[in-house]
């Protein structure tokens, strides 16, 4: 027995070293469904928890301490999920004063108490419809009340908070830059897209998973391109891809920053060095809205639209597992410990 002790000590030391060096990463995936969030263990790729939620879910984001997931239900109810207990612990509604409000785009602020959202609003007054101007608003995530706001263009549907949230980029037909560093928010510039004939549907972004890079795809009449925003610096860049476009709802970058995976009816692999498509694999399980990737880059997950999650080996691009989810879904988010 004594002969084994050195080996056990060595093994324990090695594990300790790996853990302390942050080499081992544990992925948990959160399936953003309909009246349900489902938790997938990234090691076993098994569904390990179901979290009942009121409403249909859209935008979502993890808190900086990785203890909570915030998801927007029915486009107006902010739902806070405790990730240790796997249950909803609080909700906050942005509807108030007779206004129906709809959240498009959601980003938590670094203060941990507020979030930036784009609000579309409407109410009826004496039988007539009153439609409010779209607004970028900073809201209290505790009770949903609006702390401050600024008008933004119609078609604004997504946001990226940059430079430690001293600036918010509002993404729609164009990108509007909003200075949030002062008590009163103000627009400071516009990054043009519409005049360049870009079309964009930025309903899915994986800024956390992409290491702080907001990335969505866009289309010109001729090609697909990738729009990137470095949220640390606020730098906006775009990369038109060579060749006729594939069609994709969402994109995610590989951890080594060499590839981008895109999904709609196919899983497409884009090589960032050559600006071209490496592979296009039909999704045998049907249309997918969302794509995510394991933190080691070995597995890609496609899901949403329908009610299945398909897991691909990124080396072979073969599906290795198909999970039947409880409901149709909108998105899949990854949290890495």
């Amino acid at each position, binding site marked *: 027995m004594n002969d084994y002790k050195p080996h056990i000590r060595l093994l324990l030391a090695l594990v300790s070293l790996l853990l302390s060096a942050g080499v081992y990463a544990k992925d948990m995936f959160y399936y953003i469904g309909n009246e349900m969030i489902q938790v997938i263990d990234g090691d076993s790729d098994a569904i390990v928890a179901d979290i009942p939620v009121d409403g249909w879910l859209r935008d979502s984001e993890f808190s900086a301490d990785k203890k909570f997931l915030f998801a927007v239900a029915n486009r107006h109810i902010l739902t806070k999920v405790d990730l240790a207990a796997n249950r909803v612990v609080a909700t906050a509604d942005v509807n108030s004063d007779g206004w129906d409000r709809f959240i498009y785009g959601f980003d938590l602020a670094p203060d941990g108490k507020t979030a930036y959202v784009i609000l579309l609003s409407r109410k*009826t007054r*004496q*039988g*007539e*419809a009153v439609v409010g101007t779209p607004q970028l608003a900073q809201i209290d995530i505790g009770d949903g009340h609006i702390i401050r706001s600024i008008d933004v263009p119609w078609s604004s549907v997504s946001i990226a908070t940059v430079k430690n949230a001293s600036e918010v980029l509002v993404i729609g037909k164009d990108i509007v830059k909003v200075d949030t560093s002062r008590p009163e928010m103000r627009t400071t510039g516009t990054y043009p897209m*519409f005049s360049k*004939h870009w*079309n964009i549907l930025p309903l899915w972004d994986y800024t956390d998973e992409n290491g702080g890079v907001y990335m969505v795809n866009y*289309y010109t*009449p*001729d090609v*697909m391109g990738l729009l990137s925003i470095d949220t640390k610096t606020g730098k906006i860049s775009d990369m038109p891809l060579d*060749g*006729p*476009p*594939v*069609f994709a709802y969402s994109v995610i970058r590989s951890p080594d920053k060499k590839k981008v995976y895109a999904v*709609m*009816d*196919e899983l*497409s692999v884009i090589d960032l060095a050559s600006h071209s*498509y490496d592979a*296009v694999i*039909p*999704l*045998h*399980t*049907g*249309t997918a809205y969302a794509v995510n990737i394991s933190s080691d880059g070995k597995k890609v997950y496609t899901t949403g639209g*329908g009610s299945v999650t398909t897991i691909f080996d990124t080396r072979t691009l073969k599906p290795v597992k198909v999970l039947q989810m409880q409901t149709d879904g909108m998105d899949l988010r990854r949290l890495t410990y």
Partner: protein
Amino acid sequence: MEYGLRISTLDDVCARPVDMGTPEGLEAPADSVFTSIYFGTEFCQELLPGGDDALAVCSYCRAKGRQAVLLTPIVTQRGLERISRLLQTLVENRFLPVVVFNDWGVFELLRHAFPTLNLRMGRLLNRGLRDPRLDMERHGAGADNLQRGSRIRRLAAAAGVVAVESDADLEAGFLGDGSEGLERTLHIPFTFVTTGRNCLEKAAHANQGRGMFTRGLRSGCSAPCRGNCKQETRPDMLNPVWRSGNTLFVKAPPALIARHTALADRVVLHVRPLP
């Protein structure tokens, strides 16, 4: 290849594709004839034909040896009842039209209340992209993905549906390879771009006054769009689009039509954009 003709009224009927000017991209032999007549509506329940009009089309088709195909739209509960009454009228008069459904509620009604009718899955159940802002003649590496729509086709085939229908969306492939046993039908040349309950034509002809927006969806419609379509001009679109009732259409370019036609068993020619 079979050929069908989409009509608004019997005044639109002609015998052969060449009589109406075969769309570019379709190579139809000169002696091809229309074997089916499509009537009804795919997009708006307010345009469902009355019993007399439907009986007239079915009678014409019987007399001419053509298949009568009733198009049905997405409906509300009220629309379901209208379709039920319409089909009851036809069945009581010993007509058994083939029915295209674009609404799963309609499908449920048909298979339970009218189980003897042949059902075809309509083009609104193809959720593929139809964005006219893109160069529709360019197609990428993901084009002609025959897997696309395979699950819904298998579902339809298992439920007894006889055909799948589509128009020329941006990526050919939704009609599949025929392995599900469904007849594959392509509608050309007008591809629908977008449709919905909010109808600008209805709003333009509505009575002005308080509450027209808040109550507009529930107000009646005199179908001012019937037989009409208007070309729209937008600077960000490469291809011309038409508004017809609650639906925008784009004319598919010849190369796109040719790609889709290669997958079709039947082609339905539309005389003009019809909602």
